């Protein structure tokens, strides 16, 4: 090693340290002596010459030390590096030896432990321990004709060898025989093959629930991996609806969706979010609102994603029909969520001040339901920390109700009239609507709603009813056309004429044209007021 270091650092001085010190000493002394000689030649006595020589030379100890260090620098470095390397190698060897010893000790302990377990199992077999309620299965000690042995291990109270009929035995019966009492478990079967290899069969809990129960044969090794308690298992019977909850995104993108909860295991919030979304930003707040006995949506849980991910105690089991609400932060507004058995939809992006403030009218328009076709509207509203449920039947949807601004965190559920209650032969209608509204900043904001199509209408519907989903006072005029057929209507200048397109003055509710019946393929267009007039109208409406 020193040879290698010498190659790196250079060849040190060939003299020994003692020789170097002696040479330095001789050289410096010789210099001082020569100064003294010179001074004495010039007339100074010995003492004065010596003192002057010392003054001119400077500190001999310092220069002696410096010269020696220069000569021995490589040697000192070599010694220090060698020492450091030796120390590192010694420590590494010591660590390796310790690990080897520890590994050997662990192996010995494991072997001892296994030996004891085997002895215990053998003694149980010999004693003929009862095999549980399943009489067809007996521990291996009680072997009968036409029986052979399998070995059961894992999460069962009585692991060990068991006799099964040569025809085989179902996995479930074998599991019960080995002391397992849960409704569902997961297992792995290792089965020897003819070529000496092993075949591994994994049996998932869902397969057992669905009735798949593999046959265990002689020589199999059965591991019961783990099992679920009865409370954790909801059999997925045919015809039974899958348990569903709903994710509602506030201002973190998207509006929401339905999620299917797992039928086995616990559907904890952490698991559900991990499966459905993955990693959430830490600042996101997760809330759960749950239907209580009075069918009101009550807040039952709230935590930040950070707390949810880091503290196992901060979690909750998600139940069917839960609304899992993701908010950007604790101060974020959820706005109101449009419900109705479909995808949850935010009516108002709280992160955008330019979005119009939603009303029940715009909620109905968003769902494409005419107010005259509504059976019921339900609003789940939080007043402080109290959950309230506000319900309107279709006939209660007055203008005042329809124009009431919805509140932050409202859940609105709209139930339209069932299609089978509509009278036959009612024509279809469609709309194209430019519907201005007021945003949070009090500015007019165009909200274009396009293409409401209905297969049937329950009865003959007038223009007045059809545009009731809008707020007629917000529009300058409303026009419509019915294919190419002519129909009397009021034009913009107030004259009735047979034209292909008809207008009604939206600000004149007494206009008889409002009562014109719409027919199939009617297209209605609402032209908006000027922005100033519209803003004035909307402010008036909100104040009212």
């Amino acid at each position, binding site marked *: 090693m020193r040879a290698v270091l010498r190659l790196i650092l250079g060849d040190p001085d060939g003299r020994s340290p003692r020789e170097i010190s002696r040479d330095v000493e001789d050289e410096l002394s010789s*210099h001082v002596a020569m100064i003294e000689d010179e001074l004495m030649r010039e007339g100074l*006595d010995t003492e004065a010459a010596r003192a002057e020589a010392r003054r001119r030379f400077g500190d001999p100890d310092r220069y002696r030390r410096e010269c020696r260090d220069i000569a021995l620098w490589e040697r000192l470095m070599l010694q220090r590096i060698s020492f450091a390397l030796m120390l590192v190698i010694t420590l590494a060897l010591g660590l390796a030896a310790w690990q080897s010893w520890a590994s050997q000790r662990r192996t010995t302990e494991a072997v001892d432990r296994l030996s004891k377990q085997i002895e215990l199992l053998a003694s149980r077999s010999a004693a003929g321990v009862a095999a549980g309620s399943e009489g067809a299965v007996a521990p291996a000690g009680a072997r009968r004709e036409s029986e052979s042995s399998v070995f059961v291990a894992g999460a069962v109270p009585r692991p060990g060898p068991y006799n099964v009929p040569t025809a085989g035995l179902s996995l479930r019966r074998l599991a019960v025989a080995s002391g397992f009492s849960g409704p569902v478990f997961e297992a792995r079967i290792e089965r020897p093959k003819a070529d000496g290899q092993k075949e591994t069969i994994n049996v998932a809990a869902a397969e057992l629930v669905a009735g798949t129960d593999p046959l265990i044969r002689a020589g199999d090794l059965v591991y019961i991996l783990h099992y679920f308690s009865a409370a954790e298992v909801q059999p997925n019977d045919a015809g039974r609806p899958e348990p569903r909850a709903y994710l509602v995104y506030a201002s973190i993108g998207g509006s929401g969706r339905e999620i299917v909860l797992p039928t086995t295991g616990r559907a904890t919030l952490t698991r559900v979010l991990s499966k459905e979304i993955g990693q959430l930003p830490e600042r996101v707040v997760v809330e759960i609102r749950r239907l209580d006995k009075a069918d009101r949506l009550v807040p039952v849980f709230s935590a930040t994603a950070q707390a949810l991910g880091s503290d196992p105690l901060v979690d909750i089991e998600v139940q069917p029909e839960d609304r899992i609400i993701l908010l950007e932060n604790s101060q974020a507004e959820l706005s109101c969520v449009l419900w109705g058995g479909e995808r949850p939809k935010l009516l108002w992006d709280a992160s955008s001040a330019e979005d119009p403030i939603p009303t029940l009218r715009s909620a109905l328009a968003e769902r494409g339901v005419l107010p005259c076709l509504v059976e019921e509207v339900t609003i789940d509203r939080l007043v402080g920390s109290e959950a309230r449920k506000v319900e309107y039947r279709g006939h209660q949807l007055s203008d005042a109700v329809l124009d009431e601004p919805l509140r932050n965190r409202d859940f609105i559920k709209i139930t339209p009239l069932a299609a089978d209650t509509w009278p036959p032969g009612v024509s279809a209608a469609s709309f194209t609507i430019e519907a201005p509204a007021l945003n949070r900043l009090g500015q007019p904001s165009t909200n274009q709603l396009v293409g409401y199509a209905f297969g049937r209408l329950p009865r003959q519907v007038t223009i007045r009813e059809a545009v009731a989903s809008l707020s007629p006072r917000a529009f300058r005029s409303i026009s419509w056309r019915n294919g190419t057929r002519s129909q009397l209507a009021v034009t913009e200048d107030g004259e009735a004429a047979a034209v292909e397109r008809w207008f009604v003055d939206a600000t004149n509710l007494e206009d008889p044209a409002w009562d014109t019946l719409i027919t199939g393929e009617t297209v209605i267009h609402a032209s908006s007021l000027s922005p100033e007039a519209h803003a004035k109208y909307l402010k008036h409406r909100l104040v009212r």
Partner: protein
Amino acid sequence: MANNQPPHPPPPPHPEVLQGTLDVMILSVLQRQALHGYGIAREIERRSGTVLAIEEGSLYPALHRMTKRGDLTAEWGTNDTGRRARFYRLTADGKRRLVEQSGLWDTLSAAVSRVVHGEPGGVAHELVSRARASPRLGME
């Protein structure tokens, strides 16, 4: 009769030898002959007109360092009075280093001089000075 006073008056406060200039002085002194430490000190003193006086012990760390670097070789010998002394001689590397260091020193000392005396400097100034001095260009 011996006296206790030095033959010369105490030297005036000598300018301290600039850091880094000792090496070039040693190399320069050893350019023509091999000398021991005492001889080097005397030669520096003589050449500087006794303006530069160094603490003579400080020569030795420099000499040993330069020997280690390969600029000098050293061997024991005897001086005129028969005292044993270590003689230093310039190597080929030392000669090359002397050329480099001398050039650097010329540039440095000229620059310091210009700074101290407030003279304009730089390459342009030097070229103009040379042009003015050149009779072919007819400039004064």
